[in-house]
C-alpha cells in the first residue's frame, strides 16, 4: 500500500532523513521509535508531502510529492499537535473534515467524547484535544493513519480506548504508523517496529522477529557445571557464571548446544533473560552509538 523508497529529507540545506526505505501493508501497525531528534516527525511529515525530499513515496501506486497530495485522500494524520479550531465545537471541528456524519457520530461514541463534543474546543483539556485530534485522523475510513505521539495527555481509560480502536481499525485493513515515547504502550499494539536514529532506519522488523533477534543474553544451567566451564573456555565462548547459572550471549546459543551435546552434557535450562522492549531499544541505540564512535 505505502512504499517509501530511498527517501532523503531536507530542512533548508540540512539532511534530516537519509535513505529511508520501507513498506506498509493494509492492517500493519508500525511503531516508529527513536530518540528525540532522530527524525520520526520529519519522516511522518515527508510521507504526508509536507517537506522537501527526494526518493519515492507511493500510496497505492500513486506518487506523493511536496505539491501533489491527491494520493493522500484516504490518509488520516495527527502530527505534533491536534489541528483544532478553538472557536468551533468538537463536533464542528469534525464536521469540517467528515464526509459521513453517521460514521463521525460512531467515532465520537467510540472515543467517549459525547459529553463534551458540543462544547467549544477552546475549553478542552490536553487529553480532550488529543482525542479529538485522533478522531480527525480516523475520519472517513482511512487506509493509512499516521499518529505522532497519540497517547500524549491521555488518561488510562482513554489510552486503553485508543489502543482498542487502533486494533479494531487495523483488523478492518487500516494501516497505522505510530510514533511514541511510551514504548510499553506502543509494544501492546504494534506488529512491526521501525527504529530510527540520526535520520537513518536501523531496524525494520516484525515485533516477533525483533524480540527474537535482539534478546541480549540467555541463562544456561546444565547437569555438569564444571565440564560446561571447561568446554566453553576451550571453545573461547564468553560467559559469566553465577552459582550454577551461566549467562551467555544470544549469538552463541546454538554453538553451545552443539558443544555440550558432543560432551554428553545435558541442558537443565536455556532461556532468554527477560529484557523488556525498552532495554532492547536502548541496547541497540547504544550499540549504534558505539559503531559511530568506532567509525
Amino acid at each position, binding site marked *: 500500500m505505502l512504499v517509501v523508497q530511498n527517501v532523503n529529507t531536507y530542512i533548508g540545506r540540512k539532511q534530516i532523513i537519509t535513505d529511508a526505505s520501507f513498506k506498509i501493508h493494509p492492517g500493519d501497525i508500525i511503531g516508529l521509535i527513536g530518540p528525540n531528534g532522530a527524525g520520526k516527525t520529519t519522516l511522518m511529515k515527508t510521507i504526508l508531502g*509536507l*517537506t522537501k525530499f527526494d526518493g519515492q513515496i507511493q500510496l497505492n501506486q500513486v506518487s506523493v510529492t511536496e505539491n501533489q*497530495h491527491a494520493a493522500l485522500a484516504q490518509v488520516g494524520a495527527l*502530527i505534533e499537535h*491536534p489541528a483544532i479550531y478553538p472557536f468551533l465545537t468538537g463536533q464542528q471541528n469534525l464536521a469540517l*473534515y467528515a464526509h459521513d456524519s453517521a460514521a463521525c457520530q460512531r467515532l465520537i461514541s467510540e472515543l467517549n467524547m459525547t459529553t463534551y463534543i458540543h462544547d467549544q474546543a477552546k475549553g478542552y483539556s490536553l487529553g480532550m484535544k488529543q482525542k479529538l485530534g485522533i478522531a480527525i485522523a480516523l475520519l472517513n475510513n482511512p487506509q493509512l493513519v499516521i499518529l505522532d505521539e497519540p497517547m500524549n495527555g491521555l488518561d488510562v481509560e482513554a489510552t486503553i480506548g485508543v489502543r482498542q480502536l487502533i486494533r479494531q481499525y487495523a483488523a478492518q485493513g487500516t494501516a497505522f504508523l505510530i510514533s511514541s515515547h511510551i514504548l510499553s504502550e506502543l509494544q501492546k499494539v504494534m506488529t512491526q517496529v521501525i527504529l530510527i536514529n540520526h535520520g537513518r532506519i536501523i531496524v525494520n522488523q516484525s515485533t516477533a522477529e525483533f524480540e527474537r533477534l535482539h534478546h541480549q543474553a540467555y541463562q544456561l544451567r546444565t547437569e555438569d557445571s564444571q565440564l560446561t566451564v571447561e568446554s566453553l573456555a576451550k571453545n573461547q565462548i564468553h560467559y559469566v557464571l553465577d552459582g550454577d547459572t551461566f549467562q551467555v550471549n544470544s549469538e552463541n546459543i546454538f554453538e553451545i548446544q552443539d558443544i555440550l551435546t558432543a560432551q554428553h552434557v545435558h541442558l537443565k535450562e536455556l532461556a532468554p533473560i527477560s529484557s523488556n522492549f525498552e532495554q532492547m531499544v536502548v541496547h541497540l541505540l547504544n550499540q549504534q552509538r558505539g559503531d559511530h564512535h568506532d567509525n
Partner: protein
Amino acid sequence: MAFSLYQEFYKLNHRKLTWLAPLVLLILMILTGLSIGYNESKLLMATCYNAPDWIMLILVVVGATTFSMEFQNNAILTLLYKSPNKALVYLSKYIVILVYNLWLHLLAMLFTLGLHTIPMNQSVSWSAIYLYQQPLWENMLKTVAVDVLTTTFIISLIFLLSCLINSNAVVISVSLLMVFMGQFVSANLLNAEKFTQILRWNPFNMTNLTRQYYNYTTYFDTSHLLNQQLLQGTLSYTLLFIVVGYLIFRKKRF
C-alpha cells in the same frame, strides 16, 4: 476545490468576528453620518458613509487572521496534507475572503439605503446629479465597484504578508500601517518631486484609488496618476501580490 471552499466558508461562518464586523461597520457608518455634517449628504451617499475605509479596516483583521489562525491552531499541516495541492489551499482562502469582501460592500449599500431614510442628514434624492455628471445612485454603485478592486488589492497584500509572518498581531499591525500610512508615505515620496514619473507607480499610491474616484481634484495632486492609471496599477499589483504570496506560501516550511 468544492470541499476546500466548503471548509473555508464553514470556518468563516463560525467565527464571531465575521458576524460582529457588519455591526461594527454599521456603527462606524452612523458615526460618520453624525460627524461629517448635515449638508454633506451627497458625499455620504456616494461613499456609503465612508464604508470603504471601514471595510478596509475589517478586511485587514479578518484577512490577516485567515492564515495566522491556521498557524496558531496547528491546523496548517492538516489543511495542507488533506488538500490535493498547496495552490488549492491558497486559492480557497482567497476566494472566501473575496466573497466576504463583496458581502460587506453589499451590506454597506443596504445600510446606506437604510440610513438615507432616517433624518440624520439633509434629505437628497438618489437621482440628484453629483460626481462625473451622474446621479447619486450611480456614484454609489461605481464607488463600491472601484472599492471592491481597492480592497481586493489590499487582501492580496495581506495574504502576502500573512505568508511571510506567522503572528496575526504582527500581520494586522503591518497591514494597518501599510494601508493607512501608505498613502502618506506615497504622498511624501511624491512631494519630493524627484523621480515622480517612476515613484508615482509605487504600490502605496494604489491605496488612493477609491478616494481619488470620489474626490478627484484633491487626490490627483497626491497620486499624480489618472483614475485609469490608478486602476491599472491596482490590478497589476493585485496580480503580482497574489502570485508572490502564493510562491512564498509554496516554499514555506511548516
